[in-house]
């Protein structure tokens, strides 16, 4: 977490502990903290403060839109499960294929949107596994033309570190975010809803968040989210260049030292912090163990409830061969990453892949 985000939260566990829905002076102080956080968040996301709804996580934000808008649902096959599963649950969804970079196929999107009953379309801004950036302007152009009645939602959970969301906001009706993706705390997220967009609330009760999301506010979490988001926005331009250079250094080292490394998405089509590669002839479950043993923390795809790695649905959507997909390695860079970090990571990965390949009988 960002240090300033942690520091900003601490008072709300102590002297500022009051419930912001109360009416006494301490409650009013907590309420003011949320109001200020909402203004800060709205500014960075390019929406009006009244459009910002604080949630418990990005998944809740996604689910609120996908469960709360009537009519059919359309999404891309590379979406996060927080979008795919609620659409499967509805039973009326159309999942549209992607190109080899994981971006939604615009022709097939237009076909799917041609059904006049379509009520919601969801296309992620940045893919969480491979880092591919969607052309949201092109997506919006298709949806507005073919399905003007539909709510256009984007899961922008991965975006704030790499993309100025102010450029995305005017294109869509709803966006989802999660604080821990930009150095804020876990357990707090944001849904933005453009004025006039009607969504049935997922959680009803005390009527918080203008009756769009009930439940006592997570005051410290909301304050931490806002602090981290403002700092992320302030640092973005400088960090993009620095991190892209580190990412290039890392991926160049892997490609240069290991045979059979495939860069999953070309660098100019993905975010600076993503170093997703597929390594042929290696099983990432074994690779991750060796990396962990050498204190390099990496990921492969998403894990199921048991903790087991599942074959990636994103790579499947992109048409990556299943065997190659088993060698997927997802190294992620962020604001704390240094040059010595990436050099060490490259050395450890090269060494581990060598061990695994030698060990294969």
């Amino acid at each position, binding site marked *: 977490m960002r240090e300033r985000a942690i520091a900003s939260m601490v008072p709300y566990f102590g002297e500022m502990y009051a419930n912001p829905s109360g009416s006494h002076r301490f409650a009013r102080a907590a309420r003011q903290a949320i109001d200020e956080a909402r203004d800060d968040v709205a500014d960075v996301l390019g929406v009006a403060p009244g459009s910002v709804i604080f949630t418990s996580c990005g998944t809740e934000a996604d689910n609120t839109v996908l469960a709360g808008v009537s009519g059919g649902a359309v999404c891309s096959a590379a979406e996060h499960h927080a979008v795919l599963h609620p659409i499967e649950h509805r039973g009326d969804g159309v999942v549209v294929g992607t190109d080899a970079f994981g971006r939604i196929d615009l022709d097939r999107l237009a076909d799917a949107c041609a059904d006049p009953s379509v009520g919601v379309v969801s296309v992620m801004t940045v893919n969480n596994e491979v880092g591919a950036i969607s052309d949201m302007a092109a997506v919006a152009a298709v949806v507005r033309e073919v399905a003007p009645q539909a709510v256009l939602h984007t899961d922008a959970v991965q975006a704030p570190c790499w993309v100025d969301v102010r450029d995305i906001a005017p294109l869509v009706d709803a966006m989802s975010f999660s604080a821990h993706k930009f150095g804020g705390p876990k357990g707090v997220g944001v849904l933005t809803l453009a004025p006039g967009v009607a969504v049935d609330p997922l959680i009803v009760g005390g009527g918080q968040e203008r009756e769009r999301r009930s439940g006592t506010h997570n005051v410290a979490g909301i304050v931490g989210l806002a602090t981290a988001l403002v700092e992320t926005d302030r640092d973005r331009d400088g960090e993009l260049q620095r991190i892209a250079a580190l990412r290039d250094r890392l991926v160049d080292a892997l490609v240069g030292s290991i045979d059979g490394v495939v860069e999953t998405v070309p660098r100019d089509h993905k975010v600076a912090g993503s170093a997703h590669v597929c390594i042929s002839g290696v099983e990432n*479950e*074994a690779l991750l*163990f*060796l990396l962990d043993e050498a204190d390099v923390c990496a990921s492969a795809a998403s*894990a*199921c*409830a*048991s*903790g*087991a*790695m*599942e074959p990636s649905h994103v790579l499947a959507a992109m048409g990556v061969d299943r065997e190659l997909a088993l060698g997927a390695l997802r190294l992620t860079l962020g604001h704390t990453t240094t040059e010595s970090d990436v050099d060490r990571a490259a050395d450890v990965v090269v060494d581990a892949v060598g*061990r*695994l390949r030698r*060990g*294969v*009988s």
Partner: protein
Amino acid sequence: MKVLLAMSGGVDSSVAGALLLEEGHDVVGVTMKLWGGDSDTGCCSVSDVDDARRVAQQLGIDHLVFNFGDDFDRHVVEPYVRDHAAGVTPNPCIECNRHVKFDRLLRRADQLGFDAVATGHHARIGRTADGRLTLERGADAAKDQSYVVHMLDQDALARTLFPVGSIDKSEVRRIAAERGLRTASKPDSQDVCFITSTGGRDTFLGDRIEFRPARVVDADGEQLGAVDAVEMVTIGQRRGIGLPGGGPKRYVVDVDVDGATVTVGDEQALLDDGLSVVDVVWTDAPVAGEVLVQASAHGATLPATLTVGPTASATGDTVAVAWRTPQRRIAPGQSVVFYDPTDTRVLGGGIAVRATTVRLGPPTA
């Protein structure tokens, strides 16, 4: 030693971990995700994985989850379905041990620099005076699992540890309770992990193969009744074959899936002089002559004489078993395991194939 401990989330593998640590080993726990569908402990057996992880945390060891679902489907579930469709009754737990625990996991352990794989099976690994490894029954006769791990050869035995094989189950539970392990009083698992107790075998197979009705006939071919699913009938079965009660005891003596015919007969008709066993894996060198034979997980051992060969397949020898006295027919697909005459050591084992001669009625004088 650096040991990879297979943790099922049960008490035996939990205590195995505690004992390995006591012996000074460097232990990492792993739970294999094998079955992705419904089970009695949740999707992917998630509550068992939780138990394994919590025990690993209690023991202070790392815990991993390996997804061997593809291997499990290919080597255990698909053959299980295919065999039933062909009228063969396999033992999926043994195939899981053969292909997943003591093959896939062993190879993964090698790759990651582990010296051995440990499990919570009740069996013992010993060593002869001339340095050969032996596989022996577990110390607790009632819990012995040497039958289900009989496929371990010298190479596999050299890289396998069974820490609880030399103690009684009650001792295992006592150790678990003493250390406050959360699995101390967890009941033993009894059934095939991918078949739910609510749905059972019928539902599992019914969802995957098209059951065929069959005639039930006697030795003379006279129809006595009918069954809905010939694939669900096993040799030796007495109940559920559509025959009225009260008559003489009748057993299934033959199942002909292609001909959709189940043949029943009296106990005499169920007796064979011997059987053929294929895909035999030997613990050490092949063994011929007088042995004891066990053909079910907790079945009796019976004296017989083995003759090896003359043919063999890529997956093992073919062995002829001649019973000392005629025995009830072994259903094709069952694992048949050979023990030494003292009933202590596993010599090897394989898979029963359909008897070549079916005796119907008492032998003619």
